[in-house]
């Protein structure tokens, strides 16, 4: 049984000009101990998708399809069970550490807080002890336990956010662009910390990023999202080394190989922009920008076809391998 199982998830918002379809039939599994990367740009729905796992989607959203965690549908759960789910089964590492941290509480207290709320530690002193251990595990000196967020550097703050996410030893960590705002060096350090923790405790991770090179380093499998759907999915080496979907290819090209002379003065050129979220027409949403589109692409939406190792939703290039 998968840890997380999303089955044909659809999500729409009502707006004054009609419904906005943010997710249009997403099917995805995350196994225990697996790191799944979701690649995509702004507006593709990746953050919304992740929010559904812990039933964090806005109440005005209309959701259909199955969101199963440990075999139980999250949207059918009683409220108490959902609360228990949040942080103890699945936790979140957000992008901006500054926004995730309460500026008037010490970082030690903030790491302890979820433990006390969920009762995963029987007493405050044990919680404190565990929090200190976590701090060491993420590489922040234990002397900073009583420090306030503004007294730490950006990289340290992000590590604290990771420690907070680990506080209840969840089965799943959802990391939403956790390193995007950091410098490359600090980014690499934080990634290393995150990955080590996840692997050593056999946790699963859902890692959301627009940066394929980051996903290449952490993910076992990658799902590429565009316009509310998964358009390519498979093992990391398959998807990144043999991208089938023209969008995936464009995304791979957007991160030039430094040192490769073919990438000098030849920046990848994909015309157009990602579509406005929620309003998609008939046919493949990528067709307007696609260098390989044909007539059939504007008439119907392709479905994901292929093997477990590599599937793609494209009439022209896909579904054969």
């Amino acid at each position, binding site marked *: 049984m998968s840890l997380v199982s999303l089955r044909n998830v659809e999500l729409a918002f009502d707006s004054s000009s009609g419904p906005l379809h943010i997710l249009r039939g997403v099917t995805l599994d995350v196994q225990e101990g697996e790191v799944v990367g979701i690649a995509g740009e702004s507006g593709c729905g990746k953050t919304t998708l992740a929010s559904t796992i812990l039933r964090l989607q806005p109440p005005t959203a209309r959701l259909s399809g199955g969101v199963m965690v440990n075999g139980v549908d999250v949207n059918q759960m009683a409220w108490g069970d959902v609360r228990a789910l949040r942080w103890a089964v699945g936790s979140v590492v957000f992008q901006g550490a500054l926004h995730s941290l309460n500026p008037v509480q010490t970082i030690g207290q903030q790491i302890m807080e979820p433990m006390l709320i969920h009762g995963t530690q029987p007493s405050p002193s044990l919680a404190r002890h565990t929090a200190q251990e976590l701090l060491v595990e993420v590489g922040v000196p234990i002397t900073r336990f009583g420090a306030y967020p503004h007294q730490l550097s950006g990289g340290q703050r992000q590590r604290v956010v990771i420690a907070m996410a680990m506080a209840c030893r969840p089965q799943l960590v959802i990391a939403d662009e956790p390193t995007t705002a950091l*410098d490359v*060096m600090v980014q690499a350090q934080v990634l290393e910390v995150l990955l080590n923790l996840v692997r050593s405790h056999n946790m699963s991770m859902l890692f959301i990023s627009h940066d394929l090179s980051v996903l290449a380093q952490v993910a076992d499998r990658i799902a590429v999202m565009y316009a509310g759907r998964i358009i390519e999915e498979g093992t990391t080496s398959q998807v990144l080394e043999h991208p089938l979907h023209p969008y995936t290819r464009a995304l791979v*090209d*957007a991160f*030039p190989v*430094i*040192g490769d002379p073919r990438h000098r003065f030849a*920046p*990848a050129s994909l*015309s157009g922009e990602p579509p406005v979220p929620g309003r998609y027409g008939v046919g493949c949403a990528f067709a307007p920008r696609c260098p390989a589109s044909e007539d059939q692409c504007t008439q119907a939406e392709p479905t994901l076809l292929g093997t477990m190792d590599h599937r793609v939703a494209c009439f022209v290039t896909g579904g054969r391998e």
Partner: protein
Amino acid sequence: MTSSIEPPRILEARDVSLSFTHGHGGATARAVDGVSLSLAPGRTLALVGESGCGKSTLARILLGLITPDNGQVRLRDTPIDYSTASLKEMRRQVQLVLQDPLGSLNPRHTVYAAVAEGLRIHGGADDESRRVHDALASAGLRPPETFYRRYPRQLSGGQRQRVVIAGALVLQPQVLIADEPVSSLDASVRGEILSLLVSLRQERQLALLLVTHDLGAAWSIADDIAVMYLGRIVETGPTEVVVREPKHPYTRALLAVARASRRIPAELLPGEPPDPTRIPSGCRFHPRCPLLSSGEIDGTPCKEEDPRLRAISVQHSVACHYPE
């Protein structure tokens, strides 16, 4: 080795320094500390470094937006004087493109007004509408007329950045300074804007300074590269040369991380760049230097003496006591 003829310099900074003091009696941060840099027409220089290294400050010094404490900025070999009139004239020739296209455009101004602003500031032009039209077209927004009356919020990120570029081009500058021009754009859109910058440099022989933390963008479009750390340039040279044979340990570490493909590189630099108010003595990189910590070298000069930028081959210079 034949002597190379140096390309003509259109804009250069000579030994500029700038310090900031936080509040009253607060610590002094040496944001830019003795930097020399030059730009040549038709060539792109990437100024690369992490946040806090001073690259954005240096860019603004080159633009004349900030006055350095020491050193000179020279436009076509004449030091700029900071009088209002002469600075205004300089603005026609050296233009700026910023990171955040949404923030760079006044939300209440139409696209036309945003592009025409530069012309109007400089006394207006009789052929204003033609110049706005041409600038929008050069920036890839075609047909230009359809964009005139739109507002920034109605455009996508890439389109907004093109409007900002058009606004810079309308003055027909010879130097363009772009501070993280594509960082806040979606990945699939970046290539287009970078291509635009490449073609502009070709067509107009623009001197382009690309300030960025992204080594990939530098590899993509820069002829030359200068690596900055804590207010100093630690390595500079043609991009291909520096990337193939990085001589400074910091450059090597940055490249290792930027090029990591399937694995997080093993040799990560420890810690983070220190506060510019507490610059280490001697070589400012020495507390994090892997060469030093590995014990392979005698670290005494590193701790005591600040290395200067020295040429190790034609056009490739490094500031390190042990350039490898």
